[in-house]
């Protein structure tokens, strides 16, 4: 999955989800499509084309397309970077809901420290050039996470410090 919209504009919602399912029988394919349309909350938009969807809906469609092929790991590269901040928050909780339902390992690349503390079980801090691991931080907070909890602030500040950003602007 990519930070720009990687959904195929020439296919419908259904067609996009079915894209990777060419090895399945028609019946299995239909079941998968129905399951993932529902999971990502696109019911009623099965035959819509991506240009008729909002940014958040396109992102959910991309998640559905990736999940439909039942991958071992779902790799998300800054998936919410292009969304407005409200949609981004909604999408984060949607992603957590989907992860609970599908029980998938997700590798999530982000430049947003808050996003990492909100979503991750484990944050791997990378350095810039050469890209090596600087530090691994376990986020020991249960979901749903309280964004004003002292532990949240503490972990966020720890990560900010690790990448060398001051606490004040």
């Amino acid at each position, binding site marked *: 999955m990519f930070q720009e919209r990687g959904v*195929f*504009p020439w296919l419908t919602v259904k067609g996009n989800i079915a894209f990777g399912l060419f090895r399945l029988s028609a019946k299995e394919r239909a079941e998968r499509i129905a399951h993932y349309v529902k999971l990502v909350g696109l019911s009623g938009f099965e035959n819509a084309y991506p*240009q008729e969807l909002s940014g958040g809906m396109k992102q959910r469609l991309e998640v559905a397309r990736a999940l439909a092929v039942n991958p071992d790991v779902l790799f998300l590269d800054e998936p919410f970077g292009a969304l407005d901040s409200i949609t981004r928050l909604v999408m984060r909780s949607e992603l957590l809901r989907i992860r609970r339902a599908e029980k998938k390992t997700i590798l999530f690349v982000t430049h947003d420290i808050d996003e990492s503390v909100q979503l991750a079980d484990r944050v791997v801090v990378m350095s810039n050039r050469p890209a090596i691991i600087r530090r691994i931080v376990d986020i020991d907070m249960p979901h749903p996470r309280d964004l004003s909890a002292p532990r949240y602030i503490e972990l966020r500040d720890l990560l900010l410090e690790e990448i060398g950003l001051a606490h004040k602007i």
Partner: protein
Amino acid sequence: MPTRSDLERFLLPLGTAALAVLVWALAVRFSHTNVFPSPLGVLLGLKELAGKGVLGHYVGDSLRRVATGYFLALALGIPAGLALGWHPSLASAFNPIIQMARPISPLAWMPLAILWFGVSEAGPGFLIFLGAFFPIVVASMNGVRSVPSMYLQAGRNFGLSTPRLLARVVFPAALPQILVGLRIALGIAWIVVVAAEMIAVDSGLGYLIIDSRNAGKRYDLVVAGMLLIGVIGLVLDTLARRLERLRTVRWGFQGESA
């Protein structure tokens, strides 16, 4: 109740056309010319052709020749363009030849076409093919080249083989640009048919024009042929534009005025 946009889209062009015909009629009347026909003269000419039963047959023959050359150009041009767009080395090898052959008018090929194909349908077909082939190849090649790499990566992520990737990602992603090329090529094919029918054949709208001049300076029939070509060209272009509204390609035409 007709809306303002209905008025603008239909009544305005019709009104302008009516005005043009009026100016034409008045110009012919007051200049007392006897080499340029009046609108009524052209209409009578068309009636005469229809009465002789050649009108439909000429239109049909021209359309058939365009269809033959055009679909041949489409059948060869799209695969060639896809291959050139996909393999940069192939494009490096062939692009100079294509760019050099492209500006040579199909009309320049007429002497060779007569030499090679003699008196047959193949000559005009060849000229129409040449006119349509290059725009289709170039549009297909550029279409493939400008497919965003994220679509290719996404396709590869799903384990698509190269042929599948070409059929299911590259071709649909390039299709809007290919359609633009097809529309331009159709326009050129229709322009070329007139010249193409001046060699080797004895039917069609191009033949009508050259034959009406040669056999008795019937300028009413010459202009009738010209008008028919214009009207049919407009219809063909309108039909080709319809394709751009198909839902699988409409994404590629967004932000353009209809």
